[in-house]
């Protein structure tokens, strides 16, 4: 089997990205809650018990040891702050905030500290920091373990991170782009926040080359060509857009799907170029709508591409409510293909 036929899960691809980079550069460290899990308990035969919600750090402690793969206590403000301090002084930390919902415990370090350091210090230091965090609802069809996590363990929240100048925010959608964007984030000399969808962690599988590769941060990708409407997806929503595009194709509507991939800095050019050809835009976003990235994309296209549009831009978000618990409500909360279909029907009609 050639390497390009090799199939990895999303989580395995991130694991491989981190592992390859750690081999390349001894200044890269990994920190977070249970990133090793069994750290310090080798005497009990327990090594690497968990490896985080994506299993992205599984096995790293075995290869790189506890000096570079550091389990932290539950102290997000402390360890994200320590990662900022370490990044200021020669290391390249990859820090994991287990779920993005926990960002409230360390938001100061992200929005006041990491984001602003380079600018407010007049460019005198680099801040090579990667923050990885899991987001989103776990699932709505045959809900599995980890689903039904409720309002404080299921949020998306990338808009409040993308809002802060100085942070790069990437949202991979496949095993392939997860590996390339993770490597790009690690090699970036500034702070990058990676949002990894919980459902994709094990559900998204695909061909991933074994060799190391970089996908540029700040680039959206056209993942399906079409001429009638542009569907803009973010993270897991890209898969929902592709599902909708498939159904639309059977009705004779050719949808183009743009995977946004980087929320900050946003690649307006690729989105505008697509809209110029299709003349219609639907943005699909799992975050809540008020002050969301979906509405930001809509505003940018309205500002720069209004004359090309044949129909009003549609944004499809989760509703402006906390994430509910009951499976039936959670399924209703997350944007799904039928919402896209009816939006497109109105526009193409």
């Amino acid at each position, binding site marked *: 089997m050639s390497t390009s036929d090799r199939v990895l899960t999303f989580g395995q691809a991130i694991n491989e990205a981190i592992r390859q980079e750690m081999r390349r550069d001894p200044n890269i460290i990994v920190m977070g809650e249970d990133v090793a899990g069994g750290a310090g308990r080798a005497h009990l035969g327990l090594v690497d018990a968990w490896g985080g919600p994506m299993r992205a750090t599984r096995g790293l402690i075995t290869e790189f040891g506890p000096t570079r793969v550091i389990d932290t206590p539950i102290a997000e403000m402390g360890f994200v702050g320590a990662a900022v301090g370490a990044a200021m*002084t020669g290391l390249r930390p990859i820090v994991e905030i287990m779920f993005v919902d926990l960002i409230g415990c360390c938001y100061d370090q992200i929005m006041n500290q990491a984001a602003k350091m*380079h600018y407010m*210090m*007049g460019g*005198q230091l680099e801040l090579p920091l990667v923050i990885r965090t899991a987001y989103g609802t776990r699932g709505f069809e045959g809900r599995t373990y980890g689903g039904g996590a409720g309002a404080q363990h299921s949020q998306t929240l990338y808009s409040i991170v993308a809002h802060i100048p100085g942070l790069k925010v990437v949202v991979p959608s496949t095993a392939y782009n997860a590996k390339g964007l993770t490597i790009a984030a690690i090699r970036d000399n500034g702070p990058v926040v990676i949002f990894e969808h919980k459902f994709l962690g094990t559900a998204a599988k695909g061909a991933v080359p074994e060799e190391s590769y970089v996908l540029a941060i700040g680039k959206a990708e056209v993942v399906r060509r079409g001429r009638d409407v542009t569907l803009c997806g973010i993270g897991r929503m890209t898969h929902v857009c592709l599902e909708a595009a498939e159904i639309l194709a059977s009705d004779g509507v050719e949808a183009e799907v743009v995977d946004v991939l980087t929320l900050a800095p946003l690649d307006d050019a690729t989105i505008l170029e697509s809209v110029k050809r299709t003349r219609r835009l639907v943005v699909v976003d799992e975050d809540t709508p008020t002050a969301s990235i979906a509405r930001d994309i809509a505003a940018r296209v309205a500002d720069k591409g209004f004359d090309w549009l044949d129909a009003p831009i549609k944004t499809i978000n989760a509703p402006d409510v906390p994430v509910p618990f009951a499976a039936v409500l959670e399924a209703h909360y997350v944007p799904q293909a039928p919402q896209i279909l009816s939006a497109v029907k109105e526009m193409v009609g």
Partner: protein
Amino acid sequence: MKRFCRIAPRNSERKALLRTEAWNDLTQERLLWLYRHLSLIRLFEERLKWLVETGVPVGAVHYYTGQEAVAVGVCATWETTDLIASNHRGHGHCIAKGVDVKKMMAELYGKATGTNRGKGGSMHITDVKAGMLGVNPIVGAGATHAVGAALSAKVRGSHQVAVAFFGEGAAGIGALHEAMTLAAIWKLPVVFVCENNGYAQATPVEYAVPIKNIADRAAGYNMPGAVVDGQDVLEVWDSARTAVNRARGGLGPSFIECKTYRYYGHHQGDDPHRYRTVEEEEAARARDCLQTFRKQVLERGLLAERDLKAVDSENTARIDEAVKFAESSPLPDLEELYTEVYVPNGVA
């Protein structure tokens, strides 16, 4: 295992010991270093206060006046490669760590020649080359950065020590406790220096902190804690060198609480008489750290009056030069508004 010890027990016996031993460990050159920096901080802040009061727009500033012995006593212990993280009242820390007062003054004036090229101001003065990781006005945040710097030193095997300066106002914030937890469990080379000046803005320490000595909390993190007279630069230095040596020797973090006093309000516009008495201020000024040091060295015959006067006039000239430099420096280009938002990329 011994759960708790004090680096510097507060008793008269200890003080007497310090009086002889610590003084013997200081060369004349080192004594002059101490005085030069005590005096430079005092003169910098007094000039700044005068500038503010004559209407020079230097932004929001928090005078360090009164607390000089803390920054100077701690920084006197170090190698130049050591690192500090500071808080909003950071001018003294910067000067004691060797940041150029010309660039500091230019930064306060918002000039392109400032430490941060006019993009930081008083509350963000940084000089990475001098080991000064940033004045930081988010209370407690700097302590986490010091811990990260110490972690970095440990991973890189650089033998550097990191010091966090914070006020007693930080005693209530979680970031400090998280920082202390991490430093303690990872045995990091950090020294936590709490400058207890009695007030968090207008809130008195006895209201906001339920124990008499914040350093007693060090016991909860299994690290040594010491309470020292923050008006006595020798006592600060003696305690800090023990902590720094301990850190460099791989024995982990320590906590030093320096009891001190700020002479002016919280910031340039604050009238402290709304929350404290003139009598209290006078009592604190009677124990002024510069006057105490002068008296000590003169009485012991370690330095002569003319040495001290020479330092003062040299420092006054440096401040004059700093103000001149700041005034004559160019403003930042308007383009600067948009630059350095993202860090330029290397490897990829």
